[in-house]
């Protein structure tokens, strides 16, 4: 955390650095392996290890790791059957992958000295666009031209269409933005706040106990938000898949 109070910016934790030793400080090539990429690979490895090692024995009476793996599986499976129904089962892999990736990325970012890749809008926007384009293609393939009736609320007079259709279209295109901004803003704001309070600890001397207790509380809150945001992203993905399958 920020030592000495001065010098360190609370935003320094979001800097992306190239891990290639040949690069100057702050210089990033197009295909460089950055600290962000490193955390994504670490997340991937951790999720895979969590699930593969957890299910290695496949015991009838699960152990601790197996219980955790099974709980996370059942959580997402339940979420999908609640929001989409039995047809949603074939989209389980993508939903589960998104959930585990975001959740582990958020939680890894809670470790000191690590990097939170979900605090960068380009990462969350890429994931949101993946969901958005996937769901739109799914809806068009399944409903063909009927998909465009999606933008006309049923029962509205034709005279209102010029007003309502643009509103509905904007509403539709705001989905990937709200999906990505929500996750990114929450992680960015939370981690910045954490660093700002941590910066006060050294400066305030004995009274540093006050911001310190605040930081302890904030860490708990941030952990909750890490779960919550992964959950929100997942449930909205499910809702969008449900929309694509059933339209009105």
């Amino acid at each position, binding site marked *: 955390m920020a030592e000495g109070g001065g010098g360190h910016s609370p935003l320094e934790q979001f800097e992306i650095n190239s891990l290639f030793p040949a690069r100057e400080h702050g210089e990033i090539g197009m295909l460089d392996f950055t600290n962000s990429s490193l955390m994504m690979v670490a997340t991937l490895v951790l999720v895979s290890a969590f699930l593969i090692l957890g299910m290695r024995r496949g015991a009838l009476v699960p152990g601790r790791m197996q219980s955790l793996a099974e709980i996370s599986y059942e959580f997402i499976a339940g979420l999908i059957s609640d929001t989409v*129904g039995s047809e949603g089962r074939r989209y389980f892999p993508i939903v589960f992958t998104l959930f585990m990736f975001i959740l582990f990325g958020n939680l890894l970012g809670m470790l000191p000295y690590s990097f939170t890749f979900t605090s960068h809008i380009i990462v969350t926007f890429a994931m949101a666009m993946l969901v958005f384009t996937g769901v739109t293609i799914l809806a068009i393939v399944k409903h063909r031209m009927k998909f465009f009736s999606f933008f006309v609320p049923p029962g509205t007079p034709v005279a209102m269409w010029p007003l309502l259709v*643009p509103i*509905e279209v*904007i*509403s539709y295109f*705001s989905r990937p933005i709200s999906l990505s901004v929500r996750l990114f803003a929450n992680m960015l704001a939370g981690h910045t706040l954490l660093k700002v309070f941590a910066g006060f600890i050294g400066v305030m001397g004995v009274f540093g106990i006050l911001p310190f207790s605040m930081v302890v509380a904030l860490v708990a809150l941030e952990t909750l938000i890490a779960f919550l945001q992964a959950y929100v992203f997942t449930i909205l993905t499910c809702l969008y898949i449900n*929309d694509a399958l*059933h339209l009105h």
Partner: protein
Amino acid sequence: MQDDSPPPSLEKLNEGLRAAKAKRRSVKADPGERGKGMAFAMRIGVEIVAALIVGVGIGLLLDHWLGTKPWFLLLFFVLGAAAGFLNVFRVVSGLGGQVGYRKESAPTESDSGREPADGQAPAKGQDKDG
């Protein structure tokens, strides 16, 4: 005559009051419900901003393309705000984040019968052409 039926005794009344108070005190916030509520609140805050961003973006693009400097921006700013409020209204009234006014929230099983039709070979071929 009227004096014969005494008013309900104070003790009885007290008992009833105590029972009602105890009932109110026992109502506790369920942590699971609170988590769901927070997830819900997180969703609506961003909806207005997102719709405004899209509206203003479309307006600026159209202006840039057609050279009608402020007009499409103004129009789509208002439309974006309307879409934002519509999104919030939908989230709050339990319609989910979806476009359109779907009445039944429960997914129907009737559509599952139609599903295999998607996997048919001719349908797939058409998709690739188009």
